[in-house]
């Protein structure tokens, strides 16, 4: 038996006495440390995404209400368009602006209005593209939550298996099977799984909640786009007749 290894194992076991989180981290193997740091980063980042999405969705639904109120207030759509200009603050007004711009361009060209059906088609397409682009931006990074939720437990499990392997190696090196030798290594190994679960559980819950909220918001935008498209095509019919 290699005396150096034995001595190292004995020292490691001897030091493995304080089971605070920091001590568990510090006395872990390099691989386990990397796993733990990755998991901590995943937890940090997924919570950043969660906070960001929740705050954003809340303010978006408030802004959408404001916009719908203005939109249905009966004031001129031209005025609304002027007020928003080219800097829409939120997806619903972005859809509105995209449709209005297309409408005004078509209206500015003499004779363009003659083909009302193609204009209505164009308007629908523009609004659909705008909606998809907005939803794409909103759904960005959701994939990280999904992957964290599914991968983090496995990553933690990997750290645990690695740590337990080390523990058994230490047992083999010292031929000491007392609980004091085995327990710290196992505690340290299980710590990796604990961090993995800590990262994964909020990520899964938040992913489910946020994606359903996003779906609801997307439906709301689609409904608005449909209604606005209907209004515009009615306007086209009035104008062409």
């Amino acid at each position: 038996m290699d005396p150096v290894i034995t001595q190292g194992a004995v020292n490691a076991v001897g030091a493995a006495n304080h089971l605070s989180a920091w001590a568990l981290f510090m006395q872990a193997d390099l691989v386990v440390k990397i796993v733990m740091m990755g998991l901590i980063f995943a937890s940090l980042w997924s919570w950043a995404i969660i906070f960001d999405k929740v705050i954003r969705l809340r303010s978006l639904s408030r802004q959408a209400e404001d916009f719908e109120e203005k939109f249905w207030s009966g004031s001129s759509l031209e005025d609304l368009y002027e007020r928003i200009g080219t800097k829409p603050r939120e997806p619903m007004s972005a859809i509105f602006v995209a449709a209005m711009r297309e409408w005004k361009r078509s209206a500015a060209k003499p004779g363009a209005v003659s083909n009302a059906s193609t204009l209505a088609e164009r308007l629908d397409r523009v609004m659909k593209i705008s909606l998809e682009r907005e939803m794409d931006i909103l759904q960005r990074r959701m994939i990280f939550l999904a992957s964290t939720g599914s991968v983090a437990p496995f990553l933690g499990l990997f750290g645990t298996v690695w740590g337990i392997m080390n523990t058994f190696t230490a047992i083999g090196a010292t031929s000491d099977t007392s609980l004091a030798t085995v327990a710290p290594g196992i505690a340290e190994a299980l710590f990796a799984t604990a961090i993995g679960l800590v990262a994964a559980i909020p990520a899964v819950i938040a992913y489910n909640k946020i994606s359903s909220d996003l779906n609801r918001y997307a439906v709301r935008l689609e409904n608005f786009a449909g209604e606005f498209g209907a209004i515009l095509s009615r306007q086209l019919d009035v104008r062409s007749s």
Partner: protein
Amino acid sequence: MRRSPYTSIQPNETKGIVLSLALHVGVVAATYVSLPFLRKDPPEQAPIILELVTIDDITAAPPKPVPVEEPKPAPKQPEPEPVKVADIAPPQPDQMPPPPDFKIKEEPKPEPKKPAPPPQKPKPPEKKKDQWADLQSLVKDLEKKETKKQNQQQAAVPQDQAKVIAPNISDKATMTELDAIRAHIEACWRIDPGKEGIDELSAEVRVYINRDGSVQQAQIVDMGRYFADSAFRTFANSARNAVLSCGNIPFSPQRYDTFKDGIVFNFSPQGRVN
């Protein structure tokens, strides 16, 4: 990122990162400051009986290379002799020091319960006998007879020690780990009992041990007095040398954690030198 001019303005995303960081730091801080579950001290271990020893075993336990001496009628009249300079005074045949007082304090955590917390050994023999008499008069008589005989026959240390320990373990004849360690180190301690004012001295030595029981380090606790007071220095050196020269300390490896942060031995001849 290039984007179509008609997409909505995206608010910046640092807020989420800052909030997330704050949450994690808060959770970690909470676990360290208030939540007890990660800081819990290791569960207290019930005292482990190191050895099952009979009185005879203990009597034989400290195998000290004591020069066997002839019984003296009155060995307890130490005149204050000229002070010796040597740190460790070899025991003089006439004035063989009776086993000194040992109190072992465990720094990290005192044992919650001990089957038989050994009462202060250092009490003078007469007093002990009185206590003993209160408990069992019959046994006392026997004991007294025995010890008297022993006293008269030899004043050698092991017997004396046995007499001191005997009352603690007479019931069950078990010995806790601390007692074993105490007896072990007691056997190695040499002091000059004739030294002036030695019964006023007591020194605490903190001992760090390795897993195999060998002594890693022995520190004298009161270093200020160690440098200031030469009598204390001599005394403390003798105590430290006792620990260092004593070889491996007997303890069970499972209990290493208990002793890892150092054991404090209190060396004090008080009450034994008269």
